[in-house]
């Protein structure tokens, strides 16, 4: 226990980490021993310890994405022991703590794997495909200023709450990493259904789903085969219901929209 338990036993671990010089190089798994890891460390702090060791030896530290380290920015992205963000459900890698591992464990650490997420270096992948999907329609077209008073659009609490649930997606890409088809449906559907539920999203409802799905396909994500792996591994619990809603929106839009 942090701070209050000075007797927490340090652990020795073996890490097998994907190393890859850059986008165009081939990569491989490299084994690193790490010693004296406190169970109170976060997973990324354990990685920091390894990187400091590597640096002192003059070796290239392992590149991995991370920023807020409190589970909200969505930047951290490791495939740990065969699962995105590691073994704990509802937890990002930065919030995963070493107490969930045992002394002597071997831990494999890989980058997200998807054609749409090419590896920049080591464990760092390019997730700009997500941004481009959002650019295809993940917004309400209102300019700054000239909008009605905030209370002019009453929204039932139940709908506001549901829209919020969809809006909490942190865009980390664990859904893609978990999916056997590297499908981005959960990510795309979270935004589509958030805006489809709200009155503000109605005017662009049809074009939004059409354009976002088209962009998702262009980016080279796989198709959704309803395995449910995405929602099971989503660190913020985005629900599969969003995917079903996306399909409804898609069918309705394709059947009725004016765009040919």
């Amino acid at each position, binding site marked *: 226990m942090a701070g209050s338990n000075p007797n927490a036993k340090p652990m020795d671990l073996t890490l097998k980490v994907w190393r890859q010089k850059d986008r165009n190089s081939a990569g491989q798994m490299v084994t690193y021993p790490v010693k004296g890891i406190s169970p109170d460390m976060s997973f990324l702090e354990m990685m920091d310890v390894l990187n400091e060791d590597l640096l002192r030896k003059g070796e290239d530290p392992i590149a991995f994405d991370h920023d807020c380290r409190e589970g909200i920015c969505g930047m951290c992205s490791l495939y740990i022991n065969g699962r995105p963000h590691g073994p704990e459900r509802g937890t990002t890698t930065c919030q995963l703590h070493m107490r969930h591992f045992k002394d002597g464990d071997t831990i494999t650490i890989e980058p997200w794997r998807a054609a749409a997420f090419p590896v920049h270096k080591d464990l760092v992948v390019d997730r700009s495909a997500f941004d481009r999907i959002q650019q295809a329609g993940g917004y309400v077209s209102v300019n700054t200023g000239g909008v009605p008073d905030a209370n002019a659009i009453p929204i039932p609490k139940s709908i506001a709450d549901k829209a919020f649930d969809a809006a909490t997606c942190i865009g980390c890409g664990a859904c893609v990493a978990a999916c056997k088809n590297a*499908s981005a449906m959960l990510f795309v559907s979270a935004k589509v259904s958030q805006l489809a539920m709200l009155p503000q999203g109605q005017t662009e409802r049809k074009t939004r789903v059409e354009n976002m799905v088209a962009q998702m396909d262009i980016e080279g994500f796989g*198709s959704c085969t*309803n395995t449910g792996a995405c929602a099971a591994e989503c660190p913020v619990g985005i629900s599969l219901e969003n995917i*079903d809603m996306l399909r409804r*929106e898609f069918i309705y839009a*394709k059947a009725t929209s004016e765009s040919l």
Partner: protein
Amino acid sequence: MNWFTKTFSSTVGRKIVMAVTGLFLCSFLVVHLIGNLQLFRNDGGEAFNLYSDFMAHNGVIRFMEIILVLGFVFHIYDALVLTRLNKAARPIGYVNSHPEENSSWSSRNMGLLGTVILVFLIIHLWNFFVPARFEANGGLERVMIEDVEYHNLYSAVVLAFQNPIYVAIYVISMIALAYHLIHGFQSAFQTLGLDHKKYTPFIQKFGVAFSILVCLGFAIIPLYFFFLV
């Protein structure tokens, strides 16, 4: 591309085709099973042979047969296209992966199960449909029922299921079909966006029961003829 082909060549659109054809094929299974139940009548195959003759010559059925073939074709074609796409979406796999922690085995192996079913389908057609319809494979024996000559498909069934290899193939295939349907049935509803807090739990339970009962019904036939006839 016009809007129609655009719709049905998108990943979401292709899945919609698979869902619609899949549910249609499910309805075919029901019809087929009900027909097959004639095999259990203790009448030396008379009812079954009459039924198969009806199926072979009725205009509506013949038309539906074309639709059925198209259903298979689209279901399989889109499955192949999507599978290729899905494989391409992850060119480099994981060294260590534990998908069993987040999804069911059948949901991840629909392609494999589908392939088993396709191979079965070919064997099955070769055994019964081809001889009956095209007089190929030596054709079928004839049988007289009320002074009219019919194909004796019943005897072909009896004969085929004396062979333990066929029995094994049929039973294993039905297990594969059951797993295919356990995921596929409710997945089709999801794919069509038919999701609702009130109805989805029922659809899911019904799907499992449907898959097991239908496949059990089919699997009993070879076992029945092998062990009891």
